[in-house]
């Protein structure tokens, strides 16, 4: 890309609403994954997928406005996601050690 069209960004060629549509579809896929699967690890992965859809939209807006602040925000979102995954997987390991399952429907102790 950089060799083909040196100094040109995709945002100058591709309309903004294409990116918005793509990110909406990716976010919807993440929501679908949370509702569809019962394995808690896959649900955590779907949450990561939703975060990535939002990250991509932030980068697209950043490119459109020529504003680096949004890209710094994406960097922070990645940092928080990494910390979240570390703690979340540790909790899931603990749950598995006590109940021998990662089935989210089995873990309904907090259900009212």
């Amino acid at each position, binding site marked *: 890309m950089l060799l083909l069209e040196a100094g040109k960004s995709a945002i100058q060629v591709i309309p903004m609403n294409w990116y918005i549509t793509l990110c909406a579809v990716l976010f919807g896929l993440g929501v679908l*994954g949370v509702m569809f699967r019962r394995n808690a690890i*896959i649900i955590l992965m779907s949450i990561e997928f939703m975060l990535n859809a939002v990250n991509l939209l932030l980068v697209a807006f950043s490119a459109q406005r020529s504003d680096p602040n949004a890209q710094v925000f994406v960097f922070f979102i990645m940092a928080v996601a990494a910390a979240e995954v570390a703690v979340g997987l*540790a909790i899931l390991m603990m749950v598995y050690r006590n109940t021998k399952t990662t089935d989210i429907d089995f873990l309904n102790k907090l259900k009212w």
Partner: protein
Amino acid sequence: MHLTITHILFGTLSFIAILSGILVIFSKNPVHSVLYLIVAFFAIAGHYILLNAQFLAIVHIIVYAGAIMVLFLFVIMMLNLNKETEPHKPAWIQIAAVIAGGVLMVTLVGALRNAGSLPLTQPNDVNIGLVGNLGKVLFTDFLVPFEISSILFLAAMVGAVMLGKKNIK
């Protein structure tokens, strides 16, 4: 509309991302889900490069494909999850989930389809995604959040170690 190489790259990367996202949800084996998610993350990194966010593309590959997904893969292998141990929801809940997710997706796309048609307000600067430029912003305007994120990582690390210990008295 004139179809350029950028359009073709955008379409290919979007297709790969959406297809592997669908495969993440619907593949029976959790290990396959992790591998398809890595493919989707590489497609998103390609999108970042198209948008001239080179630093973020590299960080994305290192953090997500390199660190987080390896963590997921290790946990799935440690718990020995496979196709046989994979729990399944009843069919009517699965159908309801697909309908609800599809309706949400259609609503989002329909509501946002005509948004964002504003023209570029200023001449597009292709250098904002480079390391030097981002580092300048990160270490001047966002220095305090950057330092706080290091404390967040310390807390996450201590928390993960505490949770992972065998039996806490």
